[in-house]
C-alpha cells in the first residue's frame, strides 16, 4: 500500500488535483482511497458527485464510540473510497486535534486492513500549522509528500514552510518530501520561480498542471476532469501526473 500526502497553501488546488489523481489511478485499475484532512470537508466533493458525505468527526459526535467504517468511508467515482476527517464548528474547538481523532478512528476501525486500498491520498489543509496537521506525515501514515504550489509568492512561501516542517521531522522517520506539483496560475516566469524553489528545497517539479477552463467546467458538473472530459488535454495531463506519483 502506497500512502501519499498532498500539502500546499489553502486554495491552491490540492483537492482538485488529488481528486483527479484518484480518478485517474482508479481508471488504471488501482483501488484508491482519498482522505480529506480539512475542516471544510470538500476534498472528495467531485468524486462523490457533489454529495456531501458525513465526516468522521460528525459521526463521532453523533454516534460516539459506535461509529462503523460504513458510516465514514463512502464509495465515489469508479470505486474510489472517500472519507473526510471534518473539523469543529468554525471559531471554536481545535481543528488539528480533530484530524488526529479522525485518523485514530480510521485506524481503530481497521480501515486500511479491511478496505485494502493500493493507494491512499491524504489531502491536507494549507500548512503544517500545528501537531494535528503533521499527522498525515507521521510514521505509519503517509510515506511520501508532494506539495502543490503556483509561482505566487504566498504559495511558494507556504511550500517552503512545509518542506522545513518535513525536514524538522526527519529524525523521527516521518514521510519524505518527494517534490512539487506546479499548478499554474499563468504568472510571469512561473516555471523559473518554482524551479528555483525546487532547487532550494532539494526537490523537483514532478508535474505541471496548466490553467484550463475544463477544470472549472468539470467542477460545475460536480465531477473530476478525468470523469467529465476523459479525452481532454487536461485529463491526459492528470493521467501523466498520476504515473509520476506512482513512481515514488
Amino acid at each position, binding site marked *: 500500500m502506497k500512502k501519499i500526502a498532498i500539502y500546499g497553501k489553502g486554495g491552491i488546488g490540492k483537492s482538485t488535483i488529488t481528486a483527479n489523481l484518484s480518478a485517474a489511478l482508479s481508471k488504471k485499475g488501482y483501488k484508491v482511497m482519498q482522505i480529506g484532512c480539512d475542516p471544510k470537508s470538500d476534498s472528495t466533493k467531485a468524486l462523490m458527485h457533489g454529495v456531501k458525505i458525513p465526516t468522521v468527526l460528525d459521526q463521532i459526535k453523533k454516534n460516539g464510540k459506535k461509529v462503523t467504517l460504513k458510516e465514514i468511508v463512502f464509495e465515489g467515482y469508479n470505486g474510489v473510497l472517500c472519507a473526510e476527517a471534518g473539523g469543529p464548528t468554525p471559531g471554536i474547538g481545535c481543528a*488539528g486535534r480533530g484530524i488526529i481523532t479522525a485518523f485514530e478512528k480510521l485506524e481503530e476501525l481497521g480501515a486500511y486492513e479491511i478496505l485494502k486500498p493500493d493507494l491512499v491520498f491524504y489531502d491536507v489543509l494549507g500548512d503544517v500549522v*500545528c501537531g494535528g496537521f503533521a499527522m498525515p506525515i507521521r*510514521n505509519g501514515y503517509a510515506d511520501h509528500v508532494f506539495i502543490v504550489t503556483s509561482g505566487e509568492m504566498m504559495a511558494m512561501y507556504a511550500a517552503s514552510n512545509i518542506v522545513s516542517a518535513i525536514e524538522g521531522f526527519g*529524525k523521527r*522517520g516521518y514521510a519524505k518530501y518527494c517534490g512539487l506539483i506546479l499548478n499554474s496560475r499563468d504568472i510571469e516566469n512561473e516555471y523559473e520561480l518554482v524551479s528555483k524553489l525546487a532547487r532550494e528545497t532539494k526537490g523537483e517539479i514532478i508535474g505541471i498542471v496548466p490553467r484550463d477552463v475544463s477544470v472549472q467546467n468539470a467542477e460545475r458538473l460536480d465531477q473530476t476532469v478525468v470523469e467529465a472530459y476523459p479525452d481532454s488535454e487536461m485529463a491526459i495531463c492528470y493521467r501523466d501526473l498520476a504515473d509520476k506519483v506512482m513512481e515514488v
Partner: protein
Amino acid sequence: MSQLCVYLPPFSSDYSGVCTCLFDLNGMVVIHDASCCCANYVSYDEPRWFGNKRPIYCSALREIDAILGDDEKFIRKVVTASDSMKPEFIAVLGSPVPTIIGSDMNGIAQEIEGKTGVPTFGFSTTGFRYYNRGVAEAMVKFAKYYGGTSSQQNPGGVNILGLTVLDFSDNSNATDILNLFEENGFEVICSFMIGCSLMDIQRSTQAEMNIVVSQSGMALATFMEKEWGIPYVAATPLGNAGSEAVVRTVRQACEDRKSRVLHGEGLHDGEVLLLGEQMIANSLRNSLAQSYGVKGVTVGCLFGMDRALAQDFDIDIRDERHIRDLITSGKYSKLVADPLMKVLLKDRDISFFPLPHVAVSSKLYWHRYKTFIGDKMEAFIAQIAGTSM
C-alpha cells in the same frame, strides 16, 4: 452530565498502567506533563512508591511549551537526565496536554534514541483511557523489542501475563501466584510485569505456556501466540479449588498446545453482580459456579469489556449512573465490588461483599488487599455463595 461521578473517583489511567509495568526495570520513565499526572501516579496508583527509589520523572510541561510545541526542550531535558542516570532504556509517556496538542510520543522517542543511543519507547498515553490499556501496550512493546528469537523451548517454562499492582496490589499476591506454579513443577520464566527483568523478558519466548491473570495480559498473549506459537490459559488463580483448576488447565494446555479461556458452564444472568477487572471477576465467577453451584453471576466490567472473555449477559460498565441503575434494577441480591461502591447501595436490600481494587480506591485499601490464593479467598468465595466454611 450523565457521566458525572458523584461517589466514585476517576479510575487509574493508561499512563499509570505503563509506569507500574516499568517500575521494576532499570529504565528511566518520563511523563510529559505539568506534574499532576506524575504526582497522581506516584501518590495514588503505585503502592510500591513509598520506601522505594525509582527514576520516574515528569517533564514539567508549561503553557508556553504547549503553545509553541517545544518538543526540543523536552528532548533536551530527557537527554541530559539520561547522560547522568545511564538507564537501560527510556520511556516517554503522553498525558492529556500532549494529546490535545498532538505531540508525537513515538517520534520524540525516536529522536531521543538517536541522540542518546539508549533504547527509547514512546507511549501515546492520554490520561483518558483506563490503566489496562497502558499495561497492555507496555507489555507488548517490551516483549516485541526484548523478546528473544531463540526457538529453544523450555519444557515446563511458563510466563505470567498481566500481573500488576493495580490489579493485585503489593501484598503477597504476585509471589503466591509464582509459588503456585513453581510448587506444581513449572518454572516461571517471566512474570510480566512484577519482579521481572529485561533478561527475563528476553527469555520469555522460551516458555511453553502463558498464563494470563488479568484482561490486560490478553494483548500480549495473542501476540506471543501468533509470533512465537506459545499458547495461553486465561484465568486468575483464586482460592484453593479455583487455583487448582487453573493449574490443571495449564497442564492440559501444555499437552495439547491449545489456548484456553476458563469459562464456567450453565451460567446465567442475575443474583450476584461482580463489578471489577474482567479476568479476576470471571475467575471468581468460575469458582462460585464450580465449587458452590452458584450459577447466576453477572460480571460488570469496570475497565472495558473483552468480548472473547465475556458471557452474553455480561455488562460493559459505562459510568457511575450505570452502576446505580444496575443496583436499583432489582435483579441482583448480592454485590461484589470495591468497598467504595458500597455507598451506591443506599438503602437497597443487597448484600455487599468488599473486594478492593487499587485502580478504583487507590491507597484507601491497598494495604488491606485480599490474598487471592489460599484459604482466605476460599472463605470469601464461600461467604458470597452463602456457605460457611
